[in-house]
Structures are given as structure tokens and as C-alpha cells.
């Protein structure tokens, strides 16, 4: 552990911009919801009605988690139900960034050769992340108490946010030990996060399968119910999980060589297969892992979403309890429709993450010097760029197809469910196009594409609540996707979105031809 303090300072120095961003960004979000709800509801009765309808809307439950009460605090916590997921993502990315990513790049070798203990790097990364999570929890509790919310509930909410960070810092630490590249460590961590979310969702939207949510770390933090039950049990479970994951990661670290993962590299073929001889064939080699992984993930999403679909109506009836609620949201058919429309929207946003990740591979290739090797052969820029872009466009299509098809088959109505998923594609392509545009014109800022996704998520989740102007909501391509199933289908928005995506992508590719590589 020698040298942990110094390395900790290094971590904080390197993250001095990004860390405050997520500490305060996520930290003040519950307060923003409180403020939003306060202006939204003129009377307490309106709020209670809203809570009653929401608690019965399976689409909402799928997205935000279960809602047990109708107080302002409970509503705010519930609407922020996706935040633990985002915190988990931030935490695990931070830990991987300061452990495996450094090790892969060779920086660790330099650091470890100085007076620094074996565990110092991992410890510094974990302490920094855990400290940031703690600070975020304090911001949450402070702002909520300041907003006049009950003290116990505010502290419980702070603890929920903090533990979300702690648990996935531990997950990130384990992923960093298991794999030998930062990319696979991140993928492993994100898969763990995705599995937690899907288990949570599966358990929450159906009465008879609630145990699923108890298998998920994300499910636990939803079961604390701040401002309501203020349950300590799930929080303790989360704390134990965090401690165990950190312990396991330290054990794994002590049992491997520097630079190595636990899975050893094997020898491969001495010559290339005859098929490996074109930019597209190379792109296939580079993207196929991503494609298989995401498709498998989407297939799993489809199975869970479809499998749970049938019990959605039952749950709505149980918690709403009255026909009045049903009729207000449009009858039992509408309940299932709303549910599948929401899951399709969620899948669309996740598929957009895949599209951005695949398109950014191009930038990775450029920065790592691989592009230079390819572009010094008779491969042109356009061909090279297009060979990657095609995976950013078709990959999400395959993934959404798998999800929609499986959800439809399991639920028993293939057509409408599949259509809802595929309707997301043009919006997903817009994000791929934006990424290509950035890679072509402003490569140093290409990762802003992730910011574009974050903006879409934010507009979807808080846009209507904070009563943004329609033109702001219209900035997100997902606003223009027809509300399927149940809504009316008009092809025009989809055609326009596709055209916008093509324009962005085309300009990006042309700009790529005109600029320096690497830049």
C-alpha cells in the first residue's frame, strides 16, 4: 500500500474536471426533480393522482423502478431511478481508467518500479471513487434537506447514491483484474451493469418474479425506498457487496503478474485466412466481438422484456386497483402497449450507445496508430471510414432485430413489438452520424458523441417534467420516433431521421478525407 497517498493525488489531478462533474451532476438531480414536481402540481391531490397512475404504469416502472408512496420525496427518488445506474457506470469507468487502462498503456510499469506497493494503484483508484461517491451522497442529502425534505429520507437517499458508486467501483476493480485490456474490462463492467438493470426490471414489472430484483445490486438500491420505508436491509446488502467485490479484486491482483489478466493469451494462426484481405474484412475482425456481445445482450433484453410482458397487466391492476386508473391510461391493451413502447425506447437508447461505441472504434484505430498502417497501403480514407461506419449502422440493426424478435415471440405478438424496436433505428443512426461527423471534423472532441447520448437520455427523462420548450425536446432524434405500439405510425419522421443521419455521416466521411491522420 506504500505510495497510495501520492497515487491518490495523481488520480484526483487527472480527474479534476470529470469527477466534480458527476459528483455534482448526479448529486443535485434529486433536488431538480423536487423543484420540477413542485411547479408541476398545483395541489397535493394532483400529486397523489399522478403517483397513483404512475405506480400502475408498467412502462414507467420498467424505466424508473417501483413506486410505493406519493410524497414529493418519494416521487423525486422514483423519477431518478435511473441515476444509480449512471453512477455505477461512472464509478466503474473511473476505476478501470486508473487501473487496467494505465497498466495496458505501460504507465503502471513505470509507477510500480518506484517506491509503490502492489496494491497502491488499485487502492488509490478505489479510494478516489469511493470518496467521490461519498461526497455525492453528502450533496444529495444536503440539497434535499435544504429543500425541506425529511432528514432521514434525505440521508437514506444519499446512502443509496453512495452505495451505487461503491458497488460498481468494486465491480470495475474485479473486471480490471480479469481481463488484460481496458476495453474488455469496461465491456465486462458494463455487461454486469446491464445484467443488474435487466434483473431489476424483470423483478419490478412482474409480481410473481420479484426475486429477480433481489438478485441485482441495482434492485437492492431500489428497495431502500427513501422518504418511505427507509429500509436498512438492502443497504446493508449493498455495502457487503461492495466490500466483497473489493476484497475479491485485491485477491485477484495478488495472484497475477503485472500486465497479465487471468485469462492467458494463446497462440494464433501463423498466416491470415484467405478472407482477411480487405478493409471490410479487417473491420469485421475488429467489430465482431462487439457485435456478438451486444446482440447477445439485446437478445437477453428481448427475452426478459417479452417474458415479463404478460404479467404487466396483472401488476397494473394490483397496484392501481381501480378501473378508473386503467381507463385513464387507456385500458389493459394500452398498458401492454405503453410497456412495450417504453422498453423499445430504452432499447433504442442502449442501441445508440452501441452505435457510438462502434463508430468511435475508428478514432481508437487512429489514435493507436493502427490507422496509419492501413492508410499507408492502397486503402483510401473513405473506404477505411466506411468499413467501420457500416458496423455502427448495421450492428445496432442486428441487435434491435434480435431484441424485438425475441420479445415478440416470447410475448406472442411478433409484429407490433418488433416494429416498435426497429422504429428506433433511424434515431440510432442519427447518433452514429453525429459520431462520424465529429470524427471527421473535430476528432479531438469525438467522445462528445457520448455527451449527445447523455443529452438524449436527459431529454427523455427530465425534459417533459421540467417542461422544456418543444424545440429543445425536438433536438433529440428519439423525440421523433413514432410511439409504437399503440400510437399512430407515420413514415415521414423516420425518413427524415434517416436523411439527417446520412447527411451527418456523409459530411463526416468527406471531412475525414480532407484532414490529417492522425490528428
Amino acid at each position: 500500500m506504500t505510495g497510495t497517498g501520492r497515487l491518490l493525488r495523481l488520480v484526483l489531478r487527472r480527474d479534476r474536471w470529470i469527477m466534480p462533474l458527476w459528483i455534482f451532476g448526479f448529486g443535485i438531480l434529486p433536488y431538480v426533480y423536487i423543484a420540477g414536481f413542485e411547479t408541476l402540481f398545483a395541489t397535493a391531490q394532483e400529486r397523489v393522482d399522478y403517483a397513483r397512475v404512475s405506480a400502475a404504469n408498467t412502462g414507467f416502472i420498467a424505466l424508473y423502478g417501483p413506486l410505493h408512496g406519493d410524497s414529493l420525496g418519494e416521487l423525486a427518488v422514483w423519477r431518478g431511478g435511473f441515476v444509480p445506474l449512471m453512477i455505477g457506470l461512472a464509478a466503474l469507468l473511473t476505476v478501470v481508467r486508473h487501473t487496467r487502462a494505465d497498466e495496458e498503456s505501460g504507465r503502471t510499469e513505470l509507477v510500480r518500479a518506484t517506491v509503490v506497493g502492489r496494491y497502491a494503484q488499485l487502492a488509490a483508484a478505489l479510494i478516489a471513487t469511493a470518496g467521490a461517491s461519498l461526497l455525492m451522497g453528502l450533496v444529495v442529502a444536503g440539497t434535499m434537506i435544504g429543500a425541506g425534505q425529511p432528514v432521514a429520507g434525505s440521508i437514506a437517499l444519499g446512502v443509496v447514491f453512495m452505495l451505487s458508486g461503491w458497488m460498481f467501483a468494486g465491480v470495475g476493480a474485479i473486471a480490471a483484474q480479469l481481463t488484460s485490456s481496458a476495453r474488455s474490462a469496461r465491456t465486462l463492467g458494463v455487461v454486469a451493469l446491464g445484467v443488474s438493470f435487466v434483473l431489476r426490471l424483470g423483478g419490478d414489472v412482474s409480481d410473481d418474479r420479484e426475486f429477480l430484483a433481489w438478485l441485482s445490486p441495482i434492485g437492492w438500491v431500489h428497495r431502500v425506498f427513501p422518504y418511505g420505508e427507509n429500509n436498512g436491509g438492502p443497504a446493508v446488502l449493498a455495502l457487503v457487496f461492495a466490500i466483497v467485490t473489493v476484497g475479491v479484486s485485491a485477491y485477484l491482483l495478488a495472484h497475477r503478474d503485472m500486465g497479465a489478466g487471468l485469462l492467458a493469451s494463446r497462440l494464433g494462426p501463423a498466416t491470415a485466412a484467405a478472407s482477411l484481405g480487405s478493409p471490410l474484412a479487417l473491420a469485421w475482425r475488429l467489430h465482431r466481438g462487439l457485435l456478438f456481445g451486444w446482440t447477445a445482450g439485446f437478445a437477453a433484453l428481448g427475452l426478459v422484456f417479452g417474458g415479463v410482458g404478460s404479467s404487466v397487466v396483472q401488476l397494473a391492476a394490483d397496484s392501481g386497483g381501480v378501473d378508473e386508473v386503467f381507463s385513464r391510461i387507456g385500458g389493459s391493451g394500452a398498458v401492454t402497449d405503453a410497456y412495450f413502447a417504453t422498453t423499445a425506447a430504452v432499447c433504442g437508447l442502449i442501441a445508440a450507445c452501441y452505435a457510438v461505441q462502434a463508430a468511435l472504434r475508428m478514432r481508437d484505430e487512429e489514435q493507436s496508430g493502427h490507422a496509419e498502417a492501413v492508410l499507408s497501403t492502397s486503402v483510401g480514407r473513405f473506404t477505411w471510414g466506411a468499413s467501420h461506419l457500416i458496423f455502427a449502422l448495421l450492428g445496432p440493426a442486428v441487435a434491435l432485430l434480435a431484441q424485438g424478435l425475441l420479445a415478440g415471440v416470447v410475448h406472442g405478438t411478433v409484429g407490433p413489438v418488433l416494429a416498435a424496436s426497429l422504429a428506433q433505428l433511424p434515431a440510432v443512426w442519427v447518433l452514429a452520424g453525429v459520431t462520424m461527423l465529429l470524427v471527421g471534423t473535430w476528432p479531438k472532441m469525438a467522445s462528445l458523441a457520448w455527451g449527445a447520448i447523455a443529452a438524449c437520455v436527459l431529454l427523455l427523462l427530465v425534459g417533459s417534467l421540467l417542461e422544456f420548450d418543444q424545440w429543445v425536446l425536438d433536438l433529440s432524434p428519439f423525440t421523433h420516433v413514432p410511439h409504437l405500439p399503440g400510437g399512430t405510425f407515420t413514415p415521414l419522421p423516420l425518413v427524415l431521421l434517416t436523411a439527417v443521419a446520412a447527411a451527418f455521416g456523409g459530411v463526416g466521411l468527406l471531412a475525414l478525407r480532407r484532414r490529417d491522420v492522425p490528428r
Partner: protein
Amino acid sequence: MTEAIDVEGLVKRFGAVTALDQLDLRVRTGEVHGFLGPNGAGKTTTIRVLLGLMRADGGTARLLGGDPWADATALHRRLAYVPGDVTFWPQLTGGEVIDLLGRLRGGLDPKRRDALIERFELDPRKKGRTYSKGNRQKVALVAALSSDVELLVLDEPTSGLDPLMEEVFREVILEEKRRGDRTVLLSSHILSEVEALCDRLTIIRAGRAVETGTLADLRHLTRTTIRAELTGPVNGLASITGVHGLTSEDGRVAFDVDADALEPALKTLVAAGVRSLISQPPSLEELFLRHYTKSEK
């Protein structure tokens, strides 16, 4: 076509930094041309402009008779490149990378590939992430050398190789040279390598060519070190222009002398009577150091 590379007044800026400042570089067809310069002098940037990866802000560049930016893909069929900082895809084996790059270039000679793998003692079955720097360089070298191309562009190709492999590299390049139809641009700062392989060389500093010519030409530009024991007193040595750093003690003199002052200096020594004389020809190191330390001023 007598010039494989013809660069005149090349300018390349990165924001406020001028990486290439009126650079001239001429490489004749069939020669091995050394491209020397300290770190950050602009060697890699020049090469990237020549490969059409970067666009120049000024000046002209011709490569194999074409425009490196506009005709990039057509020209790239006729050349092979070994980057200075070699990294390959972690999931591809060395053998796969060699084949892939060869095919993307328009084909490679499998017999030559296998022979080169043998000579460089490379294990082509290993994955990219497990290779050391030297082994990655070997992969890049085998990939470049097994294609039948007119021009080889090598950016510090031996910086990670061990001395045995460096020797193999020299042998291979000398064989290429004997064939007579291949041009090699060899960026390096290993002087013995340049001395052993290159017909002509260009030294660049701060984005500008400061010296260009054959090794003999360049030697001519620098000083010979003379040490002599004299039988009698010597007069007028200090007054010869071109004699530098003269020290004299107990009939022993030592000085550096410019090439064109060598004759008068030696005549003066002979007039005084010479008991013993040691003359040291200028090494490339000195030439190099002279140009580089000059840059600090």
C-alpha cells in the same frame, strides 16, 4: 524518373507550432537515403506528408512522380512503410498482420515472407498484444520487405531491435541495395547504421534540412583532429584560418582543422619537423553533434 522523392520548401504547421519550415529533400531512385535528425526535428511529419496522411501547408512534394496527397492510394501500391511507433491490433497474430498489410498493399511474395520470418526469428503465431517493441518492429519490417515495391519508407526501423537483429536488418537492406531498383528512405538516429547503409543523407533540424549530400561530401564539411609531436618550434599555425582549438605543450600540438585548411596546416607542421602524427577523420557523430548543438544557440 531519376528522383523517387522530391520535396521543396515544405511547410507544415500544427497550430502555433511550425513542424516543417521550408524543408527540402531529394531522394534519387535506387539509392538508400539516410534521414537524420534529433527527436522532434520533423522526420515523422515529413514522412506522413509523403504518405498523404497529412496535408502540407506550403511547398511541393512529389513521390514516385505523383502527388502524395491526391494520388495517395495509387502511390501506396508502389511503396511500403514501417512506422516509427509500431502497434498492431491486439487480437491479430503477427502472421495475420503481415498477410493483411501485404494484401491491402496489393500482394506479397509468400516465399519471401517466410524467408524473412525465418531470418528475423519471428514467431508469427503470437497475438499483437504479447509482442515486445522489437518484435512488433520485426512484424512491420517483414510486412514491408516481403512486398515487391519500388520504395521503402522506414521510420527508425531498428530502434527496438537487438544487435543481432540489427545486423540482419543491415544485411537485408544491403541485398535490396544490390538489386538496384529499390529506393529506401531510412529515418534514423543510429549513425553507424546510416554510415553502413546509406549512399546519401539529409540532416534536418527544427523542420529544415541543414545538410545534404554523400557521406564524403559531409565529411568534407567538417574538421579533422590532428595531434603531432614536433622536433622544432612551430610558427604561424594559429594564424591559419580554419585551425581551431590549438594547444601546444613541450613540442606537442593538438588542433582541429577544417578540410580546406588541412594542407597549409600540414605544411606548417612539416616545416617545423614532425616526429609523430595522428590524424583522426571526422566521424558522423561529430558532424551530427556539431549540427545539433548549434541549434541550441
